[in-house]
């Protein structure tokens, strides 16, 4: 059982929900930058949420399936087709051996996105390292040989829990998660004050939360670099000692241009942390196109919890829907 990379696009890698438990060794969690998308795609093909899939960047890729199987995409579909037949995000479809999934070069979503997650029934079966199949591109391990996928790569697929009739079942879909942002509007991310927030001038806080920022093309899986007005610290602010950072941390280097850390970020940093994006909104950052506008909204801890609970409710609804149609898989709502 395998899939064949005809064309990987800009950056394709094997990712699961991340490599946890090793941050005290300097090992970043990595994993799918949008774990919600990967989880939904996995459920649609009868996998556990934690099965490994492919994270694709900016479309323009081709993947051939070498066995009869079932697939689902989530995130930006880039006008995806399977042998010419359109495939919408959050749809589960059967594919035959020899069929090819193609993603175009331009986003086609109502709100254009940047990345796509592909789940295949049985999951991408590369050997887990330190408890995860995710590719750590920086450290060069995990996934397929610790690297981004190339043309001609062949990836093994694990054993699916779908039986023959389930695998062949006609296409169905679930509701995609709602970003809550209208088409054409900036991506909004909710954030809590960071540990060094008070080192910044009042004006910097106003700017951080008032201005629309732009995601620069220098952004990657380590972090989204934002361009906008300079965020200044108070005079006499001392340099901080190295301290832990998590995905979502908004750190401000001396340039005053903030960076929002993502899954592949280093585990510790030395730049002041003005804010931290709440966990429930990280997926929106993973999907926001380079060059697109972004707005930060300061919230309190209760709102962060409510937002996380809303995310969990969405996953639970997906699980309920799938359970009602006797679809196999992990349906615990987590």
């Amino acid at each position, binding site marked *: 059982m395998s899939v064949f990379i005809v064309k990987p696009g800009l950056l394709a890698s094997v990712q699961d929900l991340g490599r*946890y*438990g*090793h*941050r*005290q*060794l*300097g*090992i970043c969690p990595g994993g799918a930058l949008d774990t919600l998308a990967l989880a939904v795609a996995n459920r649609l093909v009868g996998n556990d949420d934690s099965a490994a899939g492919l994270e694709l960047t900016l479309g323009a890729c081709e993947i051939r399936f070498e066995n009869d199987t079932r697939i689902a995409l989530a995130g930006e579909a880039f006008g995806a087709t399977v042998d010419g037949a359109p495939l919408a995000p959050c749809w589960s479809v059967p594919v035959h051996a020899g069929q090819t999934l193609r993603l175009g070069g331009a986003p086609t979503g109502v709100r254009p996105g940047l990345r796509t997650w592909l789940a295949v029934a049985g999951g991408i079966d590369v050997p887990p*390292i*330190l408890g995860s199949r995710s590719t*750590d591109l*920086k*450290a*060069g*391990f*995990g996934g397929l040989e610790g690297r981004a996928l190339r043309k001609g790569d062949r990836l093994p697929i694990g054993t699916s829990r779908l039986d023959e009739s389930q695998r062949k079942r006609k296409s169905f879909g679930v509701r995609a998660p709602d970003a809550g942002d209208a088409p054409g509007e900036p991506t909004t991310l909710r954030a*809590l004050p*960071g*540990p060094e927030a008070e080192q910044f001038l009042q004006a910097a806080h106003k700017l951080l939360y008032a201005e629309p920022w732009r995601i620069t093309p220098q952004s990657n899986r380590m972090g989204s670099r934002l361009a906008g007005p300079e965020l200044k610290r108070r005079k006499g602010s*001392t340099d901080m*000692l*190295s*301290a*832990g*950072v*998590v995905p*979502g*941390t908004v750190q401000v280097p001396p340039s005053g241009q903030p960076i929002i850390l993502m899954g592949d970020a*280093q*585990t*510790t*940093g030395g730049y002041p*942390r003005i804010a*931290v*994006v*709440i*966990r429930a909104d990280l997926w929106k950052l993973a999907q926001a196109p380079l060059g697109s506008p972004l707005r930060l909204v300061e919230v309190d*801890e209760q709102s*962060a*919890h409510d937002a*996380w609970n809303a995310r969990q409710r969405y996953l639970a609804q997906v699980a309920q829907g799938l359970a009602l149609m006797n679809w196999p898989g992990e349906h615990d709502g987590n």
Partner: protein
Amino acid sequence: MSATEPRLHPLGDAALLCELPAPATLDAQRKIWALGAQAAKWPGVLELLPGMNNLTLSFDPAQIERAALEDKVRAIWPRLSAGALAGREIEIPVTYGGEDGPDLEHVAKHCGLTPHEVVRRHSQAQYVVYFLGFLPGFAFMGGLPAELATPRRSEPRVAVPARSVGIGGEQTGIYPLVSPGGWQLIGRTTLELFDPQAESPTLLRPGDRVRFVATSVVA
């Protein structure tokens, strides 16, 4: 020192920073190790993110509320004994200078010493691993002789070769992987700092006492 309580501050909705005031000392770091050893056992605490003089606890808010976690840190803090970790003695062979240490000359000039004297002092000191972070297996160590402190390069290198030994400000360290970096490179070791397939993936661990052994000096 040990009477000082850490400042507690959330780092997002699922992590808590526990931070002692500067300056970083080995005593403070020992308390950080002790706190980590306790907190790792608490239900709902997922991961430890140690730093210099600080520790961040990632937690699952569905299992433990932040306020409850803060209470636990405050309650245990006065009772922590700053016991030393059972660190090991680790010798790191280094080829100093030349291609392996292109900045040795610059460091010597900055410090007003000969390159050989920089090597002598760098390899004579004993260093203690405070914590691992930044990159897999990257050890933040204390113990660089003050006279060897050298500011980082104004233009960071795009790709520092793996296993390079460098000085950055008042710190010395070894790059486990090829990575961008601004430290002054004075040498290189043959030891692998990180092997994800190994049972213990990192060569160095917090509490280890490290010595650099000069196997050659090109100056």
